[in-house]
């Protein structure tokens, strides 16, 4: 529509604008805030990853420390080997089975936890126990339950008279593999359950009410309403648990060590044994690097699905009304003038009532439902707490009582002697004292020191960078670096260990707590940034603006307003940092050598290496000590944790 007057006005405006145009400045403040964290991530993740690529392209003689460039030879040599192929198959099988079973089990547990029953709050905390336990302890516990001579499973079956001779569960390849998978699911399913539960709780109640009015039964509603609602979180869980399963290592180390034969030699174990048992670093690096490929592919898929594309982000950033009010012009108004006055009445037919009569009488159905719920609640409780309690019981047994033949689940007399062994090794007069037991207190102290340092460092770097990412989400630079951070979170930590090991060796950081803190930052910092960003996204940006108006500088606004208000987010992130650090095993195993810097998971693993019968009791006592802090934290801060995980993972 030509309008000379308006045209003239706008050309005038353009002219004047050109005259008055101010220098368009770029806001570097968020970038500077994120810079320290970015530098750290680059140094401890980027550099090692590149280093391990380089490593995998060489042949290395560790005695002469000579590096010979061989190009892709390592890959080409390994790839066609049967050993490699079957390890790959096992990894794929392991991932498929654990992800599928874990997902079904997690969703089922979440559905039960979302119902109304007495003690629901307690059960919601209790399901977290298996997840809070360090994988090493989990391996020790279940390895002992499945033990071929003295294990609880054999004990139970013998006591019940179902078998007359102990079965060597982990001695059979297929059985061992599936049992490790089962234990892995036991350990990981709570995470799925809680993520799903949080999503169930955020579901609008009216959805189900509407579906009921529409005549949908319980099963129909689950598939038509609940599952579609959960789709985003299920997709996320699918990808995260797949990556976790591909990288699973700790359980194989503690339960089967790749055996029997090579029945449980998955890919990560293969890479580990090449690099650290046969000391063939280059081949090990190549194997571990192959492992990163599927993880990066999954990470890419994740970012595609969970980062809305730049265009849609931009469209959302600009209020949609801009364009609409622009176009809601004279034409649309003129169109409205011609609108008809509606007189549609008889176009809808009257429909018959639906007569879907239930199969069972309502009262019977309700009773059956209640019985099923009670059954499910008890099952979840035993599943989550039973093994943990069994660990406690075993730690209260004399070592001699743990190795009775034939095995039985009826415990002998309870005693605290094992705790005296591990906590006050000098003061124990009776019984044989073991060397490993004397290392437990130091292990706990090391774990505490490392955990606290890791938490502090990551909270400081993570909260500031998280703030920057939360408030500058539109800047292309910030979006790019955030994407890179996400990607590093998805790379398997196993691929980082080898470069860390070699670099730390030259820097004399092997076997130091400092080295461990540095290495752990690579695992935790991207996550900490992500969690803090998620939390801060939920804070109204007007708070800082108010602070700016009140006379704060931008840094003061962060220090005086944002951080105090974000305390719940800081707590959740801090707990997470501490838990990951406390439970971590493989970095600590490889990067430490002596009790001076070994953390408690390594100490416990040490029992397994030189196992003597009088060590069993102290080992379980140490395991309980290692498990208690995370379990208490998980029970006390359950709500924080779930919210933190959600904000850390879901909100793009």
């Amino acid at each position, binding site marked *: *529509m030509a*309008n000379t*007057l*308006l045209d003239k006005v706008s050309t005038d*405006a353009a002219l*004047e*604008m050109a005259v*008055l*145009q*101010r220098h*368009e*400045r770029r806001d570097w403040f968020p970038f500077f805030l994120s810079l320290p964290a970015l530098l750290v991530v680059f140094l401890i993740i980027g550099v090692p990853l590149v280093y391990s690529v380089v490593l995998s392209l060489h042949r290395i003689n560790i005695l002469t420390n000579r590096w010979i460039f061989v190009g892709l030879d390592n890959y080409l040599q390994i790839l066609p080997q049967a050993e490699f192929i079957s390890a790959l198959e096992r990894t794929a099988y392991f991932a498929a089975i654990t992800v599928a079973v874990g997902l079904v089990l997690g969703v089922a547990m979440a559905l039960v936890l979302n119902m109304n029953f007495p003690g629901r709050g307690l059960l919601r905390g209790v399901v977290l126990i298996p997840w809070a336990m360090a994988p090493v302890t989990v391996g020790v516990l279940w390895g002992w339950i499945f033990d071929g001579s003295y294990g609880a499973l054999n004990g139970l079956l013998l006591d019940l008279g179902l078998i007359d001779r102990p079965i060597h569960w982990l001695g059979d390849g297929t059985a061992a593999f599936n049992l490790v998978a089962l234990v892995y699911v036991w350990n990981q399913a709570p995470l799925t359950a809680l993520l799903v539960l949080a999503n169930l709780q955020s579901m609008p109640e009216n959805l189900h009410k509407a579906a009921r009015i529409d005549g949908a039964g319980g099963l129909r509603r689950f598939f038509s309403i609940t599952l579609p609602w959960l789709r985003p979180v299920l997709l996320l869980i699918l990808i995260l648990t797949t990556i976790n399963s591909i990288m699973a290592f700790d359980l194989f180390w503690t339960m089967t060590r790749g055996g029997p034969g090579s029945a449980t030699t998955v890919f990560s174990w293969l890479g580990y044994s090449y690099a650290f048992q046969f000391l063939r670093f280059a081949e090990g690096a190549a194997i571990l690097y192959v492992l990163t490929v599927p993880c990066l592919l999954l990470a890419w898929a994740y970012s595609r699905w969970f980062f809305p594309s730049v265009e849609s982000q*931009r469209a959302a*950033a*600009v*209020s*949609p*009304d*801009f364009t*609409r*009010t*622009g176009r809601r*012009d*004279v034409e649309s*108004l*003129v169109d*409205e*003038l*011609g*609108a*008809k*006055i509606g007189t549609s009445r008889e176009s809808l037919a009257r429909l018959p009532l639906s007569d879907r009569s239930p199969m069972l009488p309502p009262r019977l159905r309700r009773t059956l439902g209640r019985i099923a719920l009670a059954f499910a609640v008890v099952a979840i409780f035993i599943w989550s707490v039973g093994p943990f309690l069994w660990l406690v019981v075993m730690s209260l047994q004399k070592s001699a009582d743990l190795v009775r033949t034939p095995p039985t689940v009826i415990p002998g007399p309870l005693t605290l002697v094992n705790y005296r062994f591990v906590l006050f090794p000098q003061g124990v007069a009776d019984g044989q004292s073991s060397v490993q037991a004397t290392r437990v207190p130091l292990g706990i102290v090391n774990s505490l020191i490392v955990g606290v340092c890791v938490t502090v460092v990551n909270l400081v770097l993570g909260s500031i960078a998280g703030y920057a990412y939360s408030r500058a989400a*539109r800047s292309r630079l910030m979006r790019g670096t955030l994407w890179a951070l996400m990607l590093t979170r998805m790379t398997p930590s196993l691929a980082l260990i080898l470069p860390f090991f070699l670099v730390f060796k030259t820097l004399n950081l092997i076997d130091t707590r400092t080295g461990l803190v540095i290495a752990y930052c690579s695992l935790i910092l991207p996550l900490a940034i992500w969690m803090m960003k998620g939390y801060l996204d939920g804070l*109204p940006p*007007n*708070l800082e*603006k*108010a*602070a*700016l*108006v*009140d*006379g*704060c500088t931008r840094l*003061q606004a962060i220090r005086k*307003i944002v951080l*105090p*208000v974000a*305390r719940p987010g800081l707590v959740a992130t801090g707990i997470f940092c501490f838990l990951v650090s406390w439970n971590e095993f493989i970095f600590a195993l490889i990067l430490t050598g002596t009790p001076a810097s070994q953390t408690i998971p390594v100490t416990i693993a040490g029992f397994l290496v030189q196992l003597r019968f009088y060590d069993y009791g102290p080992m379980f006592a140490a395991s309980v000590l290692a498990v208690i802090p995370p379990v208490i934290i998980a029970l006390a801060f359950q709500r924080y944790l779930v919210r933190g995980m959600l904000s850390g993972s879901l909100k793009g």
Partner: protein
Amino acid sequence: MASVTLQHLVKQFRGVCAVNGLDIAIAQGEFLTLLGPSGCGKSTALACVAGLEKPSAGAVLFDQRDVTELEPHQRNIALVFQDFALYPHMSVRENISFGLRQKKLDAKIITTQVTAAAEMLDLGTLLDRRPSELSGGQRQRVAVGRAIVRNPAVLLMDEPLSNLDAGLRVKTRTEIKRLQRELGTTTVFVTHDQEEAMVLSDRVAVMRAGELQQIGPPMEVYRRPANLFVAGFIGSPTMNFFNVDVARQDGKLLCALGAHRIELPIDTVSAGSMQWFAQARHAILGVRPTDLVAGSGSKLRLDGEVFLVEPIGPICYLNVDVGGQAVKGVCEPDRAPAPGERITLSFPASRVHVFDPNGGRRL
């Protein structure tokens, strides 16, 4: 107190123009409202005045002094946010005094100021509570208290009433008007609620898509809307618009709306648009529902069939089918016709607005 001048203010976000060449001069002590639908750029303009956003072009002047590059705290302004933005970890007292403490003022002065502000807003008993322990209305008062405690040169309010429920909103806007008149602070108020704007302001600036549509005293904007957009946006219920054929005859404007013939005196349109009528065939007429009264009291008439009756208490809105177009009018609630009845709506020529169908300018 200060005067505020916006000189050709432009703000672009990634190529989208949120504010496009805004020129407004606000006198000392004036209450100016930026009014417009969401996304029209009014809040962005306010943020530029506050210094929270730096304009892409143009300037902001306080008392003719260029403050465009100054930070918010260097401008002596205060801002009341839509979501109040009270610091949740501080008590009401700490919230109100935070700005003063940032200025490192003497403790005695701070106490006096806080007491005075609390007095004005009736916050005395709430001073030691946390924001989470307050009701919506109380929070709003604390937010206002935090703004006025510094006795700012310019008070800025970004939709401060839209988070309150209807009854409280009406009460609070009276309070705000009283307070502003007493303090005499230059105030820029942003809202999308035309009634709020009418009630509060000395002048209203209506914006759309980043551009100023009309600025003037509330009643002027109501009585003589500058274009179709302003006419449709101001006033509730919305103005009735009619697409008519026009012709000039014997010093009168003849408008044909279906079977109706409407004769308007020539002074209904401004002298400047006479030339336009020489060639035009069509125009848009606007009549507010409140000016379309049932009965034959005025000269101009429309006939139609009532299809909906909406009593609101003092008056009753009638929805009438006038030749296939829905038209809203009013009547006395006691004399409301039944749906299906035929009635006549009449209106005075002085309340007819004529607009150019191309571009929507008032004629």
